[in-house]
């Protein structure tokens, strides 16, 4: 009756490293590991091919999103327009927001643009530290040459305690 033992939290285990039994890898695990490696390699090649075919280096434009703010702004979603046309919208999950808050950078959009002048507009929707819902739009004009262009949308601290700054900048 007095069962003594340890019950692992199912959810906890799901996130845990596969070392629970700490036993030598079985042949199945070795086979699985070899297959995983092959799939990773294959996916990497596919990723490269996709970039070459769909987003050639001379027309490629990539938009990243980062959060560098410790204020209580809770990003909810982002809308991105390129030259007035809707490029993408993204609704964030709690885990994704957590990943961004901890320093991760999201590849929000990848597409193609010709050389010349362009305009990027981003609309940030979210809840401020004062629990008010905000919708902030930022616009940025940039010149693109015949090379890939990397742009970053950043949510960063500002003087306003409730609302951070929303910035668009280029990776030089």
């Amino acid at each position, binding site marked *: 009756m007095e069962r003594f033992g340890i*019950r692992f939290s199912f959810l906890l285990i799901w996130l845990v490293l596969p070392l629970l039994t700490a036993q030598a890898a079985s042949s199945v695990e070795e086979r699985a590991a070899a297959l995983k490696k*092959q799939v990773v390699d294959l996916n990497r090649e596919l990723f490269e091919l996709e970039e070459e075919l769909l987003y050639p280096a001379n027309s490629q434009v990539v938009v990243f999103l980062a959060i560098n703010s410790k204020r209580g702004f809770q990003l909810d979603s982002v809308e991105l327009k390129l030259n007035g046309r809707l490029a993408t919208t993204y609704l964030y999950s709690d885990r994704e927001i957590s*990943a961004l808050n901890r320093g991760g950078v999201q590849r929000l959009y990848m597409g193609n643009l010709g050389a010349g002048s362009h305009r990027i507009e981003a609309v940030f929707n979210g809840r401020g530290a004062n629990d008010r819902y905000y919708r902030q739009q930022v616009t940025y004009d940039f010149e693109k040459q015949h090379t890939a262009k990397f742009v970053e949308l950043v949510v960063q601290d500002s003087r306003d305690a409730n609302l951070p700054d929303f910035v668009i900048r280029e990776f030089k």
Partner: protein
Amino acid sequence: MISHMNPGAYVLRILVGGLTGMLLLSTVAQADNSRADYLLYKETLYHLYNNDHFKALNLLESSHTGATHIANKYHNLNHLLAIQSSLHLGMYQQAEEILEHLNFTNREPTIREISRMYRGKLSYQQGRWQEAVDTLRKLGPEIPDEYRDETYYYLAMALMHQGQLQQAAPVLARMGKESLWTAYGYYNLAMEYAAIDTDPSRALVALRVAAAMTNTSPEGLALSDQIHLSAGQLALREGDYGKAMTFLQRVRVKGEASPEAIYAYGLAYKGLGQYRAAVQMWHRAKKYALVIPGVAESFQAVAYGFERENLRTSALESYVEAVSVYDKELAYLDKLIGELQQKGALEALLEGHSEQQTDWFLMGDVITNTPKAGLVGSLMADEVFYRRAKTVLELRELQKSLDEGADKLKIFQGMVQGQRQRAERSNATRSLREKAAALNKLVAERNALVSEIESAEKDQDYFRLAPPKMLAQKRRLEDLKGELVRLQQQGQAGSDTATKLEELELLEGALLWQAMSDFDANRQNARRAVAALDEQIRLYKEGLKRFNDRLKGASESRGSVGRIESLRARTTALSRQLQQLVKEENQVLAALAVERLQEHRARIQEHRRQSQVALVNLLDDIAVRQVNRVARSTSERGERL
């Protein structure tokens, strides 16, 4: 066999926090950071934090021999992330390769020490305890603080696995005071003590230390529950019911340890002879899935408590209820075992489980209240089952990603083939060689014209650049002059021939004069004609280049098509291998699940038997008492009569 708890859920947070911290503190970092590696690092972090290790590995450059790591701190950090993801996915060979690569190329002491820590962890994960101990013991002071506790944790655990508890304890004592690594370490040490000591005091002390190290994060709270449950169970084992209650009270009602704690709390009341309170407590455990330890026992215990309180009707009802619940569970288990044998573990348990639609307001209790979810949770708590299930699910995910890749490749193939066909259709109208010959002819004509102009300028040949009309006039004058001279020589000419010849010479002179005066204009016209020709040639050349590019594009398309075909072939072959492995493992997993469910079934069967026996005994007892009472009252009436 003692299981150890691992602070894995927060490993990633600490790890990446450590990497980031190290990034800021690194003393060896070179100034020139590669933007590409920086972006790669940040983007990989995003995937890592989202627990998407495959995507992280796809992004990362995991095996290379380039020199881009020189003066580039993010490069090595990316390697560390790749090692972390590889270890997470059980890709030990790949982790080993990257570690070797770092060992060969890295010159930074901090990276070297972190690599050493990962090497120790790799040995640990592969069950090579002594190797893990030897590696982790060598760690130098350059290891960043963020990694210190993790290092000591694995060192202590490797020592524990070797049964060297006396050496493990001092290692744990060197760990940070407010760290979940420390809490997990002490918890596992307590479990080791509990397994070998008859007196639980040493284990209880270790559990107290572990409890003091937990925090208010979800992982910390879950661990705290587990620590207090274990402490309560230890105290119960010793018959110290008051202490047991003190520990068990600290287990959160909403936590996963709650059913076991409730049952144990009831046992503590029972120990104190407070059966009514015990029954109340066990009643609360009845809502959970029967597979959770203590729940099936609670049904019997409630009846037992009523019996001890001499509440026989309630006891009877409770035994009947227990038998009915056990019957229901047995029927469900038989159905599930049949499904497992027929469909395999993936469909019957794992994927079917995730596809079950549950209303959001039930999600909080789904693990504990839903029989299937409870069973899956219980199976997953079995280390062997968990490892295999994790592998199968990962392989299944890989298969899905391969299917997505195959779909993309199909689209790319259509796209590239379309491009090639367009290029080839254009090619059919005229061959590149014909077009090049035409261009060469045009260029030759242009060059001839230029040399004509230059020669005319040099020779002052005014007529060479004259317009065609003037040249025609000149030819006409020459023809007339020649005709007159011929007639004169034949003696057929008239008397006015000489006059006419003079007039013709005058006209020739006038024409020459005209040509002379127009020479500059004619020259400019000729130059303009050359310029126009040059423009034509330029356009022709551009067209030819485009045509050539298109042909080249067609050739590249042919290359892309080849590449796509090769990728498709590899995808198909890999998918087939994955399918085979998933099929094999699915069967093994199903057999394992059936075995575990049969064990659970046997337990429930035993509970049912005990309840039935108790029920029969109780009914028998009631009947005997009833008979005795009737007999007594009959005898009393007889005596009175």
